[in-house]
């Protein structure tokens, strides 16, 4: 009877202590560890440690070894408190189950939370690009008609030559506009590329965050400096960091613009000239990005200049 009473008290104490351990922050956990070791466990080893952290680390190892010796598998969540808790409860099957249940519940909660966080934060970022070659009977007329339709849908003209149009269209209407282009004449070439820039986008965003945090830290340090040469040195570093941040912000803006407005280039070919052309002799390789590399594309990057000018003005 006395033995049963003793076990119940031990169980209750352990359960209360366990609860504290789970909720406590680091200092609380340390005091709990010290108390536990002093009261009932391996005090000779505890005495040898001089440092606070070393002490805790040593006891973690010690307890882990003991768990190994006893051959009992106890789920742990991590941290000094949990390992100690595991050891303590290894003496009682009920307590063991309790730890196991609590630990697995916690792990499930953690994984659900992580999934939820990742699901909420990561949004796919796509850049749509299209390139079409369309054969029509009246190039000028078809160009005007197409442009009028695209402007109605929120698109705009980026550049224009006698036979080519480069337009930017809202990304959400990209495929709708592709269908319209395909109906204006006979499609000779069609390249639609979807580029997933999610990783790049969040990489830039993260780098931006890190650099901004770094800037804030440097500014804090700057406030504490007194020597003029230290101040100058740090200000130079801060300037460099500001430039990096501006560059990344610029990249972010450009990427956001490309994500928001897709680029479509359309080349018009006069239908009656088609038979005379060397179309049938053309090499058509299944490499979509090849179409991007042309003299016309390189010389037609007017939009870049506007963006550059706008950024420069800011």
């Amino acid at each position: 009877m006395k033995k049963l009473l003793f076990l119940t008290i031990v169980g209750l104490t352990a359960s209360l202590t366990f609860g504290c351990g789970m909720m406590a922050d680091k200092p609380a956990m340390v005091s709990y560890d010290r108390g536990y070791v002093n009261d009932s466990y391996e005090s000779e080893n505890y005495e040898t440690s001089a440092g606070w952290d070393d002490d805790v680390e040593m006891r973690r190892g010690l307890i882990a070894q003991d768990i190994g010796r006893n051959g009992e598998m106890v789920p742990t969540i991590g941290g000094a408190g949990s390992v100690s808790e595991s050891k303590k409860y290894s003496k009682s099957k009920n307590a063991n189950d309790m730890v196991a249940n609590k630990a697995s519940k916690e792990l499930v909660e953690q994984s659900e939370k992580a999934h939820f966080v990742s699901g909420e934060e990561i949004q796919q970022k796509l850049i749509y690009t299209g390139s079409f070659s369309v054969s029509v009977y009246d190039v000028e007329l078809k160009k005007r008609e197409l442009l009028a339709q695209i402007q109605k849908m929120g698109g705009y003209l980026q550049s224009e030559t006698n036979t080519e149009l480069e337009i930017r269209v809202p990304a959400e209407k990209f495929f709708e506009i592709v269908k319209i282009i395909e109906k204006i004449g006979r499609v000779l070439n069609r390249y639609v590329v979807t580029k997933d820039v999610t990783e790049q986008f969040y990489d830039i965003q993260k780098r931006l965050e890190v650099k901004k945090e770094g800037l804030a830290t440097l500014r804090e340090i700057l406030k504490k400096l007194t020597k003029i040469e230290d101040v100058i040195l740090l200000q130079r570093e801060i300037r460099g960091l500001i430039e990096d941040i501006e560059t990344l912000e610029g990249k972010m803006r450009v990427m956001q613009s490309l994500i928001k407005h897709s680029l479509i280039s359309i080349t018009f070919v006069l239908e009656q000239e088609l038979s005379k052309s060397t179309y049938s002799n053309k090499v058509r390789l299944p490499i979509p990005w090849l179409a991007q590399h042309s003299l016309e594309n390189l010389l037609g990057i007017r939009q870049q200049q506007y963006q550059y000018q706008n950024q420069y003005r800011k």
Partner: protein
Amino acid sequence: MKRMILIAFLFSIALGAVSCSISLAPPNGYVELDDPPMYDYVAFSPDDVRISVKKQENLEHGNIDFWYKTFMNLNVTNRGRKFIKDGDFSAKNKAGKYLVFESETNGIVHLYVVGVLPIGEDKDDDIFIIEAAGKKEKMESDLDAIIASFNTLK
């Protein structure tokens, strides 16, 4: 205090090392375009001669001869440009080839240079496409310097 400065300095160096970008040393008198869309790098002269670099995935794992012939076909057979000359360059410890073409539209003659530099092995293949274009009379004098700048690709 010195220790603090050193930490701050190392911290900023570490931050700087996070970012890496594609660039080359353009001929004297050229300026670089900040954040060019569609390209990884663009520089231009006061005469509107432009140099660009774009890294593409070499999913086909084509070697340098494949890409040389592809760009030759693309420009001569498909686009009707006149082939002027070709040659070799090297960057990133890899061998590249360049091709020079001439193109006339509405009486205006342009020069167009395209350099191909496949790098990487097996599944990590990439190819750098370096292009330069401009009006012939403005670009001719810079041509050698432009081609030489291909060797400075980083």
